[in-house]
């Protein structure tokens, strides 16, 4: 890995889903021929309509899905490898946890799986609970948590092991305005600490506020990458670009 190595390098990435039923195989395109390099330390947003391939892309980056063709490198290591996974912190769209465990137990568990032990683990769990302001609720069972509290624990587990890259799938979906603001502040804070952040979202206004660059996916293809300078001077410009890009009437923009 050199200083120029991108945090995430995606080359000709294609994922075709094959489903067999009664001897017949149906194929669906997840993503096709995606090429992308996410720079170290940037916040990169992925925009797209439902079914455009955002979650597929994220699952491929994480090694939860295997590419049909193409390649993904995470700080120079192949996606899904232990080195790649160690460099990533992930927050799913809806954080799913073990309802019988408390917030602290869940964080301790994920910390152990990330190789943390003893005093270092305890300190990291305390620090993460502090960042997401959940220390007072840490001993309650997860089944008693509100959606906002679950999202905060989800965030805490994502950066608990101090990964270089954070991958968030729709991190602001379903949050109230206060929750949204808190989430934005935490993400900005993590980026200021040098974390590379890659996230998907439907919320163009949030993407506008957080990202340095934005990729727009249409039917599994990355059709446009927009730089911050293209929307920074003109509020609402990103939404305009997005609508133009995804609208069938404006296919020529692509």
């Amino acid at each position, binding site marked *: 890995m050199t200083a120029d190595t991108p945090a995430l390098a995606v080359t000709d990435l294609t994922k075709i889903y094959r489903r067999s039923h009664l001897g017949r195989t149906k194929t669906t395109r997840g993503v096709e021929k995606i090429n992308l390099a996410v720079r170290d330390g940037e916040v990169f947003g992925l925009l797209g309509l439902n079914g455009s391939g955002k979650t597929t892309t994220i*699952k491929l980056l*994480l*090694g*939860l*899905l*295997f590419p049909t063709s193409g390649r993904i490198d995470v700080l120079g290591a192949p996606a899904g490898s*232990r*080195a790649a*996974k*160690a460099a*990533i912190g*992930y927050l*799913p769209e*809806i*954080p*799913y*946890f*073990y309802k*019988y*465990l408390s917030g602290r*137990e869940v964080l301790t*568990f*994920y910390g*152990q*799986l*990330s*190789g943390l*032990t003893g005093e270092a683990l305890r300190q990291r769990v305390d620090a993460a609970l502090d960042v997401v302001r959940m220390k007072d609720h840490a001993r309650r069972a997860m089944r008693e948590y509100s959606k906002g509290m679950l999202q905060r624990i989800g965030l805490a*587990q994502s950066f608990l092991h101090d990964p270089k890259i954070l991958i968030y799938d729709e991190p602001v979906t379903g949050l109230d305005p206060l929750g949204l603001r808190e989430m934005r502040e935490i993400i900005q804070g993590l980026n200021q600490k040098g974390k590379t952040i890659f996230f998907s979202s439907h919320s163009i206004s949030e993407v506008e506020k957080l990202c340095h660059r934005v990729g727009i996916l249409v039917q599994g293809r990355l059709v446009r990458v927009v730089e911050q300078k293209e929307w920074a001077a003109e509020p609402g410009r990103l939404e305009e670009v997005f609508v133009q890009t995804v609208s069938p009437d404006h296919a020529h923009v692509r």
Partner: protein
Amino acid sequence: MTSIFSIARYTLTQQLRNRLYLVIILFGVLMVGASVLFGAVAADQEIRVILDLGFATTEFFGLAMALFGAVTLVLEEMESKTIYLILTRPQPRATYILGRFLGLVLAVWTGMALMEVMHFALLLFKGWKADPLTFAALPAMGLKVMIMTALALLCSLLFTSAPTATVFSLFFWVLGHFGEEIRFLAKKSGQPVAMALVKGLLWILPNLTMLNLRDHLEIPGFPLTQILPAALYALLYTGAALSLSIALFARKEF
């Protein structure tokens, strides 16, 4: 290795806090208690009836806990997506299967031990004189349930439907007790094809009768030396089933 124990520990905690699991244990304990009533009806064979019925109940509920746990554990976790946060940690996928298996087996053994404590307390209360073979029957029952846990886990990965996986696991349980009878019937048919098929089937099916030490409690002079090869067989069979599960799980997409 630490990660396997972490997953096992949290599986055990999760199982013990699961109310349904506690209901099964409670029901088992009550059933062992009920065997006292049956024993009272059996007049001079009271101790024998309590002994047999208690063992049968413990094994049956141990099997129920193992099947319910193994079949639902991974499938439920795939459905609820809690598995995403484990598989994105820097650990090989095998860690997850081994940890889940170990935790579940420990939870089932805890439940069975609880029932047996109650069972032996009842027997001692009735004036039973302990026999070493009786105590050897207990780990053998535990090993049977361990084999079934590994098989149910494999079935849940093969069939990805809880009812189908349960039916196939029960199929293994039943046929695993009738290996000799199946062989006898195939021999009696005189059909070479049937004999070849049965030979193949017997390689796949677990030989659970080998671990039925409780059937020999009343036979004087049963060689205790048979326990060691039976235990070795149980470990090898479980290892083979787990290896297949690990291979299947490594190729699974989420």
